């Protein structure tokens, strides 16, 4: 607490203009930046997976299961930064037991549980069930038991049962798309509905969140797909990468357009808050907004993707360009989340001054905790991949049905 007070004291000296005295403490820090960043990745990865199932984008098949597992790994981590940020994490279950229905935040538990239980887990289960049964037959005692537990004892491999699995996956994906929209649109609503804060209060917020989620999810799956194929010493499927890059490009264009619209709208309406927000953008947010989010994170990958996708670059170079573009997109999206969450607290609600955010290294709100929370989903994903190999060639059920229908898998 002493340290905390010292930090607040040093923040006082960096205030410009006037802020309300209670505003010296900035309440939502890096942990709260992680929350929309991670849920965005979840929603985006799932929407990408659904492109293959619902919209029959066959090129994306190699990433379908990978995208689902990625979504699951990140979804499992999503509530952790929030939990770590609470003043009383031990009371967090009250959100489930006695939710205040008028609060946007109270819906978190339900949206989260719905998405985890009824969409992701169920879809993964139906999609993997036949494979789990077959893998179990060939596995050693321990894995056999494990796979048996995961299948919940459902071992029917008759054509009707497998057909039912497929239909179930299709139906769940149909429900899943609006659910993924809900998951991240809802996160946008948490910020967009705060009328006290002119930087957040915007009806576009959920939509912008949604499209940035799609952008971040596609780019993350592209990165993971590329790295995992290299690690497995396989050739990346270029048709798949091209398709991912195309979708990434389109989503990025929509996302950027929406953000420009938001920007122009604010500037044109020029409300009471425009003075302080302009000051915010050109001073405190200059690096994270103009440089990181817009130049590095949006315009550069936009140009790289557009050029490499539609020009006759050598395949090798093309892949690298996609990879770098996707990496830049991740940086940009993180910048977006930062600029929303932190940026929205750097100006006073008196609209007369700016304050500072001091990132700590250690401690629960510190940088190290957040880095840990960003590594964690990759560890979970590693375990999930070991347990449920998402590679098309690992799927015994699929290859058998392909063989049965007379076509050969390439």
């Amino acid at each position, binding site marked *: 607490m002493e340290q905390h007070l010292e930090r607040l004291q040093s923040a006082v000296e960096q205030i410009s203009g006037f802020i*309300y005295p209670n505003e010296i403490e900035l309440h939502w820090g890096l942990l709260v930046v992680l929350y929309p960043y991670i849920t965005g990745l979840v929603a985006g990865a799932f929407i990408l997976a659904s492109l293959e199932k619902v919209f029959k984008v066959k090129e994306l098949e190699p990433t379908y299961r990978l995208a689902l597992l990625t979504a699951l790994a990140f979804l499992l981590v999503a509530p952790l930064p929030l939990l770590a940020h*609470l003043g009383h994490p031990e009371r967090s279950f009250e959100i489930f037991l006695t939710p205040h*229905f*008028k609060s946007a935040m109270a819906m978190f538990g339900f949206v989260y549980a719905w998405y985890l239980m009824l969409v992701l887990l169920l879809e993964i289960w139906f999609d993997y069930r036949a494979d789990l049964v077959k893998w179990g037959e060939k596995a050693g005692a321990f894995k056999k038991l494990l796979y048996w537990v995961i299948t919940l004892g459902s071992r029917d491999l008759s054509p009707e049962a497998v057909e039912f699995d497929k239909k179930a996956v299709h139906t769940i994906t149909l429900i899943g798309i609006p659910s993924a929209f809900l998951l991240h649109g809802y996160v946008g609503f948490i910020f967009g509905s705060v009328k*006290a804060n002119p930087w957040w209060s915007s009806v576009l917020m959920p939509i912008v969140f949604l499209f940035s989620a799609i952008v971040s999810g596609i780019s993350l799956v592209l990165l993971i797909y590329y790295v995992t194929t290299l690690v497995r010493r396989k050739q990346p499927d270029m048709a798949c990468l091209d398709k991912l890059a195309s979708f990434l490009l389109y989503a990025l264009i929509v996302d950027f357009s929406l953000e420009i619209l938001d920007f122009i709208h604010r500037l044109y309406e020029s409300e009471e808050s425009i003075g302080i927000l302009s000051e915010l953008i050109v001073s405190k947010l200059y690096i994270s907004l103009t440089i990181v989010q817009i130049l590095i994170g949006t315009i550069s990958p936009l140009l790289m993707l557009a050029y490499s996708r539609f020009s006759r670059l050598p395949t090798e170079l093309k892949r690298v360009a996609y990879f770098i573009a996707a990496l830049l997109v991740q940086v940009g999206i993180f910048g977006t989340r930062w600029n929303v969450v932190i940026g929205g607290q750097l100006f006073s609600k008196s609209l007369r001054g700016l304050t500072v955010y001091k990132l700590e290294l250690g401690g629960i709100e510190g940088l190290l905790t957040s880095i840990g929370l960003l590594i964690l989903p990759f560890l979970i994903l590693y375990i999930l991949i070991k347990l449920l190999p998402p590679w098309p060639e690992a799927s015994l059920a699929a290859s058998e049905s392909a063989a049965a229908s007379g076509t050969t898998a390439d």
Partner: protein
Amino acid sequence: MAGQHDERQFPRREFLVKTLQLPCSAAVVTVLGPLALGSDAAEASQGDSKTAERYFGMGIQVDKCIGCGKCVEACKAENDVPREPFYFRTWVERYVIHNDGEVSVDSPEGGIRGFPREEREGDVLRSFFVPKLCNQCDNPPCVQVCPVGATFKTDDGVVLVDSDYCIGCRYCIQACPYGARYLDPRTNTADKCTFCYHRITQGLLPACVEVCPTGARIFGELNALASPLRRLMRKSSLQVLKPALNTEPKVFYSELDGEVR
């Protein structure tokens, strides 16, 4: 235009209730009603809670405040507010409007020790002090956003925080347009002015009102016909802070300057 109603004759609450009664909106209301309009609809059907026997409010006469900071000191002592200058249930702001129109605002340590001498003394168009505190909004955004209902409005109109229930998510602090809330570093829960609830329910005045040497703060029941607050409301033109946000504050200011936010 033919058939156009005078909207002022048709209060918002009634309009909402009428709209909600339309059969076609029933489905939407089932889902979204409790989220967005729950309190309005419920209150309208149960009778307006503003007619409760006691309904507390405060009047602040800006022209009477001398910026001595005694109210801030009294509040901290009475309510055990952390002494450090980052936590205030009430504070005082000084506004100085210079001849060139430039406005400077300050509140050193919440004004608890008064204010330093104005630097551009000869160059002042007008200047005044504005005491601030929780506005005890009738339509409180902090109550709306609390995920567990730890902050709530009592029947007598005071917004309180149950510190045994607050999970410390700080959404209420973000939602308050007035910067009236802080996170108590000792309990890790949200805290703010309660109108000295422990005093007013015993018939006493809030500490800040009690100590104000000029009587700039007037506390009372908004519905009591013969009271100093009612008299102020009759005699002065009153303003609330940030009226466009529709929070319906119950702290009213007289002689409030347009520069105050």
